[in-house]
């Protein structure tokens, strides 16, 4: 029994210590004196790897999710004779919830794991130590551009996801199921509020972007520099960032839409 409590305390302490190191990493890499001229090309490079290369998976998933929403919404709403409301259902569920959350989850799987593996590999092959010995702070050179790239990319990807999703929903509802497109769009435009829904969705995605990239770069930077350690760190990135996204989504939703 005492052993069990000791194990519990031990793991709690190591979690806490990891959290502290993660915070330290974030602080040091963000507060590290910014060097805009050397930073910019690095940022572009990372935006390419993190953002542009995630575009395809985001567009494809967004389209399919929108189409499924259109189909499901139609079959439910047609029972109540309110199938015109399918537009607002698709748009609201996408803009408020699905776009930020699903994009963040896909992003964690596509870009987050890649970031962790890349940084882990740089650590294992002593590239980070080598930077340090050359007199370049790896936090500024390696971590900071990657963090900012993720932070900037995710909201952009989320907005694209929303639009593609609504478009997919419109294809199913209007073109296949024959809902009058005037009422489809008018209902949607009337019920979706730019500030309440769209901006809140974007705020969510900004938070998710920061958290997912933070976890990804930290796990890479903090990993055990062996092939086994890197694979474990990659798994941890996906698991932790998915959990963090879902948990934070509930909190943010409660703050934004609930009467909290």
């Amino acid at each position, binding site marked *: 029994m005492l052993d069990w409590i000791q194990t519990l305390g031990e793991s709690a302490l190591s979690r806490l210590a990891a959290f502290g190191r993660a915070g330290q990493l974030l602080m040091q890499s963000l507060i590290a004196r910014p060097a805009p001229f050397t930073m910019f090309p690095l940022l572009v490079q990372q935006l390419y790897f993190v953002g542009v290369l995630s575009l395809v998976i985001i567009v494809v998933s967004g389209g399919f999710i929108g189409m499924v929403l259109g189909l499901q919404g139609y079959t439910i709403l047609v029972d109540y004779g309110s199938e015109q409301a399918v537009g607002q259902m698709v748009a609201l569920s996408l803009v408020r919830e699905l776009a930020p959350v699903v994009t963040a989850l896909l992003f964690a799987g596509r870009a987050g794991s890649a970031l962790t593996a890349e940084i882990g590999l740089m650590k294992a092959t*002593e590239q980070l*130590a*080598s930077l340090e*010995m*050359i*007199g370049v702070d790896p936090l500024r050179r390696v971590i900071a551009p990657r963090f900012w790239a993720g932070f900037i990319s995710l909201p952009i990807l989320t907005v694209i996801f929303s639009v593609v999703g609504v478009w997919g929903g419109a294809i199913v509802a209007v073109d296949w199921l024959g809902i009058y497109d005037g009422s489809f769009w008018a209902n949607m435009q009337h019920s979706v509020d730019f500030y309440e829904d769209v901006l809140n969705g974007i705020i969510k995605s900004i938070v998710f972007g920061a958290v997912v990239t933070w976890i990804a770069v930290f796990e890479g930077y903090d990993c055990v520099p062996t092939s086994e350690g890197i694979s474990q760190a990659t798994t941890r990135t996906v698991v932790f960032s998915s959990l963090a996204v879902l948990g934070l989504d509930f909190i943010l939703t409660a703050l934004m839409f609930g009467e909290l």
Partner: protein
Amino acid sequence: MEPLSDIIIDIRGMSFSRGSRTIFDDISIRVPRGKVTAIMGPSGTGKTTLLKLIGGQLKPDSGQILLEQDDIPKLGRRELFLARERMGMLFQSGALFTDMSVFENVAFPLRVHTDLTGDMIRDIVLMKLQAVGLRGAARLMPSELSGGMARRVALARAIALDPDIVMYDEPFTGQDPIAMGVLVNLIRRLNQALGHTSIIVSHDIKETLSIADYVYMVADGHVIAQGSPDELAAVDSEQVRQFMQGLPDGPVPFHYPAPDLMQDLLQETP
């Protein structure tokens, strides 16, 4: 043995431990200027750790690491980075930046630390690559190089800023005999031509002894022997002899500690 008067790095009574494991216990090492100093010992004695301590990437628990007058562990971030500009380090894996070409890898320290024009950087890089015999490979990416070539490029990068001290971490490990010969030759030649101080950490006895001026042998956190290669060969210590001659059994036992074999075999499985 010439008197160690002109000392560039002076480690005094330094202790370092990782967790509960003591890696260095009150160790003292003096590195003479302009010479090739080798630090040898069995795997797992923290030789790489020693280089990281000198480079200020790790901090010792106690003791001093003096680079001339500066105590490395006590330097602030800024001074530490200045001190590191005087050091070049060749990592075991080469540690080339995988997203840059060979040319850019060698140019990187120059771009970071100097305000030289593009043309001047180009000239310096090509000269350094010429010195390691890889000027023709300037356009290649690190993934296209063999292990030995990667290490030579890394060496060119380590000497790009003409450092006072070049540290080699296991430079010969995992190299074929030709690449090994090339590296041995290169380290010796560069040391003479550029006049920098070299510190080699290695357990490849023959190659290391052939170029070292002075050797420290480290085991179990202590210096167990030191001197010129000839002096070391004459040391009458079982531990040193086992290492130098590569004997399978000795003070470092062949068997991992275990109960008596017969007893183990006769024991019934629970």
